[in-house]
């Protein structure tokens, strides 16, 4: 049933439909509404799960290590500083191949303290071995939550997933959302049945330490699981579309990209605003298109090349900055293209940092710069809206 609800409620409802055994939570803006809603669902008896209020985000994810190793399905949600505090556990979860699903309500990192949206938090955790899926709107965050469990728990993947949704912009928006049906989700998502769990009847050692003679192979297997996830993510999205009738793309999604001369690449909620901008620009005769990255990890290099190969110029707009270099997605795309025969200019823009609004005007500015770059790149990376007057 479609209903106007808050993004956080929709995602909490989706998590509930996945029937986690345990939810652990530590409050942090703008994630709080998600776990508040979940605790209410537990209090009302709609979700028969254990809800643990823990001492930190570090413990929130650590608790789930125990739950997952003991054979339970688990859920948590965090953002920003909380995700940073989890950093050590993030590696541990992926290294132990525990298929935990966590919503990241993307938010900027301190200092200076800022509670608003950008994606520096999850981008900073791009190398921790988790699959990262980004959502364009609330519905996609809902649908991706279910897909995430299916991907994470499939035995050939066994890799945790972060479902990234822009903080406030998606977590606090009220918009029409098709709320999921618990039974339909149960049909789509089989129960979690890991091959090994902590069980006195069949004792196993989890988390042994590996010396130089074996560590590499553990990492290789994770690397391989991510390669396998490339097709898994596509397949699960297709399967989901067949059952639920909604398709936001697999690894990526394209909008007006087929004949586009300028293609914008981006992730997250700014996709909608860019689509609006593209419609305006197209009406004026500018051939602009969009490729939305859903799966940032694993990085869909091949799929991207296929989608972008006919563009004259590529403009990457992203809500992160890798201080000391440029921005993450820009670097990744350039790296993916280097050994190919694709040689169009690729330029990048950091935008929307710390919650700075991204308007259609801003998108048009980026498109103008991209258009000019066809004749030669002036700057391959810049801050899209920089208030030079306060520098």
């Amino acid at each position: 049933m479609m209903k106007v609800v808050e993004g956080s409620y929709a995602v909490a409802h989706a998590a509930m439909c996945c029937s986690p055994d345990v939810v652990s939570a530590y409050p942090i803006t703008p994630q709080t509404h998600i776990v508040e809603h979940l605790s209410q669902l537990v209090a009302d008896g709609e979700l028969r799960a254990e809800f643990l209020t823990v001492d930190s985000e570090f413990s929130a994810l650590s608790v789930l290590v125990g739950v997952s190793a003991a054979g339970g399905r688990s859920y948590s949600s965090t953002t920003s500083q909380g995700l940073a505090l989890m950093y050590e556990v993030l590696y541990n979860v992926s290294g132990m191949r525990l298929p935990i699903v966590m919503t990241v309500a993307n938010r900027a990192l301190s200092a200076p303290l800022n509670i608003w949206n950008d994606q520096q938090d999850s981008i900073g955790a791009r190398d921790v071995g988790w699959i990262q899926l980004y959502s364009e709107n609330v519905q996609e965050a809902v649908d991706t939550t279910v897909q995430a469990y299916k991907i994470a728990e499939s035995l050939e993947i066994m890799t945790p997933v972060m479902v990234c949704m822009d903080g406030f912009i998606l977590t606090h928006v009220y918009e029409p959302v098709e709320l999921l049906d618990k039974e339909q989700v149960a049909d789509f998502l089989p129960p979690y049945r890991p091959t090994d769990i902590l069980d006195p009847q069949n004792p196993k050692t989890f988390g042994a330490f590996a010396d130089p003679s074996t560590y590499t192979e553990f990492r290789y297997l994770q690397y391989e699981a991510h390669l396998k996830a490339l097709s898994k993510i596509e397949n699960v999205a297709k399967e989901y579309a067949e059952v639920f009738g909604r398709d936001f793309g697999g690894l990526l999604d394209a909008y007006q990209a087929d004949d586009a001369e300028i293609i914008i690449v981006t992730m997250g909620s700014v996709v909608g605003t860019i689509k609006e901008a593209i419609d305006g620009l197209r009406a004026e005769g500018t051939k602009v298109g969009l490729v939305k990255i859903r799966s940032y990890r694993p990085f869909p290099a091949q799929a991207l090349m296929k989608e972008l190969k006919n563009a004259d110029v590529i403009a990457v707009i992203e809500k992160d900055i890798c201080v000391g270099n440029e921005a993450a997605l820009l670097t990744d795309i350039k790296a993916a293209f280097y050994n190919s025969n694709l040689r169009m200019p690729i330029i990048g823009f950091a935008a929307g940092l710390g919650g700075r609004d991204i308007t259609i005007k801003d998108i048009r500015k980026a498109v103008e710069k991209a258009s000019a770059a066809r004749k030669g790149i002036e700057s391959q990376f810049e801050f899209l809206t920089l208030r030079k007057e306060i520098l």
Partner: protein
Amino acid sequence: MQNLLAPGHRACAGCSMPTVIRLVLDAAGTNTIVVSPTSCLEVTTTPFPESAWVVPWIHSLFENASAVASGVEVMMKRQCKDTNVLVIGGDGSTFDIGMGSNSGMFERGHKVAYICYDNEAYMNTGVQRSGSTPFCAHTTTTPAGELSLGNPRPKKDMPAIALAHGVPYVATASVAYPVDLRKKVERALQTQGPSYIQVNAPCITGWTFDAGTTIEIARLAVETGLWPLFEYVNGELTEVKKIRRIKLVDEYLKVQGRYKHLYKMPGGAEILRSIQDIADKNIAMYKLVD
């Protein structure tokens, strides 16, 4: 005695920690899941692809064993399994880096028995000071020197911290008193809620003493009053192990390399007297002598 810790592990010859684990597991039995933080215990018992653990065991990180155990305990409860959930960790994770997650586990009231094998410093990394290191012991980060007589601070009172959380079963134990240790583990496992047992566990490498004397050193800690054996149930002191013939701390200190500077350096004698004061205080407080 059940052997739930297999031989072939890589602990130092003369280490007390494997004996502590063996005694704890013997008391707990096979229907047990153990969570361990990063420690000597972890690296010496689980070198991939081997494991000394006969019961299911999980290691995640240095500072999260209590949180992981909370998750395991919740899942056992959810599956209506009456499985013992134990944390076995060293003092570094217990007293210092894991304090936050320990506090959370205690406060949430999980039915987890937390066993700290306390060797009074970070031994896994090479004998650095921890919050558990006793007054004026030498460690590699509190070395004796012209301006230093070793660790300048007293040992953190971790049992008191557990008690302050309302942990219903709090006890100290010693590797030298296996019957007492086993009994306390059994009581901890019968407790509805968290329990905390702090076991004195001498480290031959970090404390430096003669080969073969590991257990004797632990016994001396008890007999001098420096390691009182007590038990608190629901916040009440319910049991104290009386000492038949109290010994001077000197007997305990002089046989350990970590205190040898106190016998050589100016000011050492005064420190030795104040360590005796610590023991005397314990003797009075816990009425260790009849």
